[in-house]
């Protein structure tokens, strides 16, 4: 919708008929839909939302996105959608007209109009120039060849991704912040990258020689070639770039050249319009240019002799600008900047002036084995600069001290060890550290959010990380300040934040218990349905949530749910245990640990026939055949099936084994038939899927030779009946069982066992064994459900047996008969064609 605003506002629309198109407000036209232009509008809206009618021109065909997050997009860590700052709805909701993909070509100051490339003319009352900067292209032969690009906008990233898709060699000219981030992204995308840097030190404007050397070594270790002191002579190629030649004669082949040597303010429009321009468009403290109706902000301006190429000064400039536009006039006083390199796994921070000079003293810490280098430059007891490599945790603190020009004489001895030590008391509570920061300390560098703003937003009701991200955008971009924001949340809200339960995985904000409850309450029937209804943030989950959802659905819908094999861990999909060399081990079931000559012969035959290098007796009284190839598994199973043996499920989150001692039939101490009861128990429980593995043992007397008191369910026979024990566990954290109760008959022991398993199946979280589950819910709760509630116990037992009626088919038999051969056979190349 477009219409012309009249300067004589409202004078000819006085006949009491509402005129919907009449907009009497002053018209603010913004040239530039980037970070500065939109931030200025945001600041303005925050102060006085209805004051101006706003139109924004953007050269790129996009909504407003976070340009400094292009590096993570290139590296594949973010998608474009994830770096959008303001989506189309924001423009609509705020009545802002966005003219994207049609840059302004001319400003007519006399007529107060701007004309776009497509010929559109718009009148302004106030004009804001936020054209940012242009990449600097070094004037060498070949700079215009196809395949030579800069790294400035989404179009450049798309071009780099396209080139990376073809693979090959890339050269990045420029070893500064931008160049190194481009090199990192291209290298992650599979290109062989060479960085050419004119100076001897990488990022020489931000790093000193020592930190630059550490950075260079780290990048080389990641496979990049770094040439410092390298001067580009020409870029060559026939119709397309083929390589770069250096002045010293070296020749580096490349199918892609990224020019990232620097940026310069985009001032052409302003210059053509006759505004005062030096290196940048000259502005005063309120960001007003030499024409009082025209303002300018961001990388295109020069304030007090300074031109900025980093994001942080934008935030300050935009605040002063919006104050000026709403008659508050705070005034911009220049910015001190800090830098962080956005390359995963490399922590580099610098701030202020570290060039040294008269009266400057260095405090340096080096820790070679940890790869840490810290240097703080002090002058007159105040920090004037800092360079941190390898451990940048204290970057924000040093920067805060620097900006506030705090006197550090008292903490000077400990300064270099960081805030924790300098504050006294060694390891400082990180929450106290963030609490000690000043209100205007910047927490989120990507979005320019200070501690005070975050605290304010938490106090106004944003009670979680997600809420903070949604409200003030802190930690919503690169996420490196997430811990700080979380600490702020707990400082402001107390301990309640910490108590919030963990989500099932990163794909969802729901917990295990939420998901299970909703699956049942909404009768969900498949993994895609759960992901859809519960707003999963990933297209098809991850290796954590998929197996969990598969289990929860299987448990909720016995006999009905179609198991998703692709959501199972390899062992449950292959019905064998994968070993470190990629072969499998096979454990046939031996009921209660009993076997016979026929089974032993069949096992011996398999070992010889398939050259299994090892057979081992397991802790659960089974024989484990090692070194079977995936392709041979169906044949191995066929041979074992033929001798009457079925899968031992030694690989599953399922009933593993029932271990027994010899009991009253042979043992002189035995009180009951523990082997017989063990076999019955195993016949009842085998094949059931559980939240985690589940082990049972039956001991024939309190000497407990079957070690029943470290099993998930243990039966200890005594003269007068059976003691039932639950929640035991060997493993890393040994836990002895709790006594559940004592029963007098074998049948009761079996019934209680079935009920206990079903309670565990229905209520424990996926991958939670009985021991931590019982620690969590308490043994008294388990007793209340199994021992004190006869009807409830019977219902649990019935549900377990119903579920078992669908589970007790030997999974080996169907594979041996040929099912899912694709899981065991490689593909066969059928034709070879040269092109």
């Amino acid at each position: 919708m477009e219409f012309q605003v009249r300067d004589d506002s409202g004078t000819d629309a006085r006949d009491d008929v509402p005129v919907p198109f009449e907009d009497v407000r002053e018209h603010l036209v913004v040239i530039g839909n980037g970070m500065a232009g939109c931030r200025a509008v945001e600041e303005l809206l925050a102060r006085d939302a209805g004051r101006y009618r706003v139109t924004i021109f953007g050269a790129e065909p996009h909504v407003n996105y976070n340009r400094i997050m292009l590096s993570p997009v290139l590296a594949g860590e973010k998608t474009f959608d994830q770096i959008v700052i303001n989506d189309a709805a924001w423009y609509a909701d705020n009545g802002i007209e966005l003219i994207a993909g049609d840059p302004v070509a001319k400003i007519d100051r006399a007529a107060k109009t701007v004309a776009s490339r497509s010929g559109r003319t718009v009148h302004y009352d106030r004009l804001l120039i936020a054209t940012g900067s242009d990449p600097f292209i070094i004037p060498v032969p070949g700079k215009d060849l196809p395949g030579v690009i800069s790294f400035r906008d989404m179009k450049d990233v798309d071009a780099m991704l396209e080139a990376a898709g073809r693979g090959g060699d890339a050269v990045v000219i420029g070893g500064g912040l931008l160049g190194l981030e481009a090199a990192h992204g291209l290298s992650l995308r599979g290109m062989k990258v060479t960085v050419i840097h004119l100076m001897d030190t990488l990022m020489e404007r931000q790093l000193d020689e020592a930190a630059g050397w550490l950075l260079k070594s780290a990048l080389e270790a990641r496979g990049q070639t770094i040439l410092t002191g390298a001067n580009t002579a020409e870029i060559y190629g026939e119709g397309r770039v083929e390589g770069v030649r250096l002045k010293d004669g070296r020749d580096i082949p490349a199918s892609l050249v990224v020019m990232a040597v620097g940026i310069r303010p985009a001032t052409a429009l302003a210059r053509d319009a006759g505004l005062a321009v030096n290196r940048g468009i000259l502005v005063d403290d309120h960001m007003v240019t030499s024409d009082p109706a025209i303002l300018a902000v961001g990388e295109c301006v020069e304030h007090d002799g300074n031109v900025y190429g980093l994001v942080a000064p934008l935030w300050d400039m935009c605040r002063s600008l919006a104050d000026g536009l709403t008659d508050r006039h705070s005034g911009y006083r220049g910015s001190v900047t800090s830098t962080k390199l956005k390359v995963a796994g490399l922590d580099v921070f610098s701030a202020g002036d570290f060039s040294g000079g008269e009266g400057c003293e260095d405090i340096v810490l080096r820790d070679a084995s940890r790869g840490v280098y810290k240097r703080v430059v002090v002058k007159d007891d105040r920090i004037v600069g800092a360079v941190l490599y390898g451990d940048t945790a204290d970057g924000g603190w040093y920067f805060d001290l620097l900006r506030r020009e705090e006197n550090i004489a008292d903490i000077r001895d400990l300064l270099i060890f960081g805030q924790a030590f300098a504050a006294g008391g060694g390891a400082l509570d990180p929450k106290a550290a963030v609490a000690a920061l000043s209100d205007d300390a910047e927490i989120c560098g990507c979005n320019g959010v200070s501690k005070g703003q975050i605290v304010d937003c938490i106090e106004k009701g944003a009670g979680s990380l997600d809420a903070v991200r949604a409200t003030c955008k802190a930690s919503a971009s690169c996420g490196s300040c997430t811990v700080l924001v979380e600490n702020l949340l707990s400082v402001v809200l107390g301990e309640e934040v910490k108590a919030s339960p963990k989500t099932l995985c990163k794909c969802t904000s729901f917990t295990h218990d939420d998901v299970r409850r909703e699956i049942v309450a909404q009768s969900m029937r498949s993994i895609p349905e759960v992901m859809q209804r519960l707003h999963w943030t990933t297209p098809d989950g991850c290796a954590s949530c998929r197996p969990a959802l598969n289990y929860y659905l299987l448990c909720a819908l016995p006999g009905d749910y179609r198991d998703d094999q692709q959501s199972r861990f390899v062992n449950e999909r292959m019905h064998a245990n994968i070993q470190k060399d990629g072969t499998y081990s096979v454990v046939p079931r031996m009921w209660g640990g009993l076997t016979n000559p026929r089974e032993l012969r069949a096992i011996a035959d398999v070992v010889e026939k398939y050259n299994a290098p090892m057979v081992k007796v397991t802790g659960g009284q089974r024989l484990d055949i090692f070194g079977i190839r995936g392709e041979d598994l169906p044949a191995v199973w066929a041979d074992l099936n033929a001798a009457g043996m079925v899968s031992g499920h030694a690989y599953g989150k399922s009933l593993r084994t029932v271990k027994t001692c010899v009991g009253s039939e042979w043992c002189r101490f035995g009180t009951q038939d523990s082997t017989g009861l063990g076999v019955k128990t195993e016949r009842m429980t085998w094949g059931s899927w559980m939240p985690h593995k589940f082990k049972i043992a039956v001991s024939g007397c309190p000497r407990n030779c079957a070690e029943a008191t470290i099993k998930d369910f243990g039966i200890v026979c005594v003269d007068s009946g059976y003691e039932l024990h639950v929640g035991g566990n060997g493993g890393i954290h040994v836990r002895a069982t709790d006594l559940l109760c004592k029963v007098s008959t074998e049948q009761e022991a079996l019934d209680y066992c079935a009920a206990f398993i079903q309670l565990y199946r229905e209520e424990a979280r996926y991958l939670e064994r009985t021991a931590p589950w019982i620690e969590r819910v308490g043994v008294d709760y388990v007793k209340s459900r199994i021992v004190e509630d006869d009807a409830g116990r019977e219902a649990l037992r019935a549900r377990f047996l119903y579920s078992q009626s669908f589970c007790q088919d030997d999974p080996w038999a169907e594979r041996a008969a040929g099912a899912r051969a694709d899981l065991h056979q490689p593909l066969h190349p059928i034709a070879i064609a040269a092109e």
Partner: protein
Amino acid sequence: MTDWIDIGTLADIPLRGARTVHIAGEREIAVFRTGDDQVFALINECPHKKGPLSQGIVHGHSVACPLHNWTIALKTGEAQGADKGCTPTVAVRMDGDRILIARPEPARAAA
């Protein structure tokens, strides 16, 4: 010049799954099919301890190694998150529903 080898059709690979391919003289190759029916190929070895990636859970455009749960990006072979390492990729293209993979160039076979 690239040698393209026909290894079968999209339907031969389970959705969100993988199959292996043996080519004489080459390391075993894993060919993946993602939930959006894209196909990727990697050498079938995790950069960590050489676990068979073909047996991992395929999610998004990544696979979780079955041995120690490293997540490997299918496009680049690069380990994700805090883990570092890279599995060599193998070029793939579709010809209708047939899957063609590039025989690794001799000079690069050792790389």
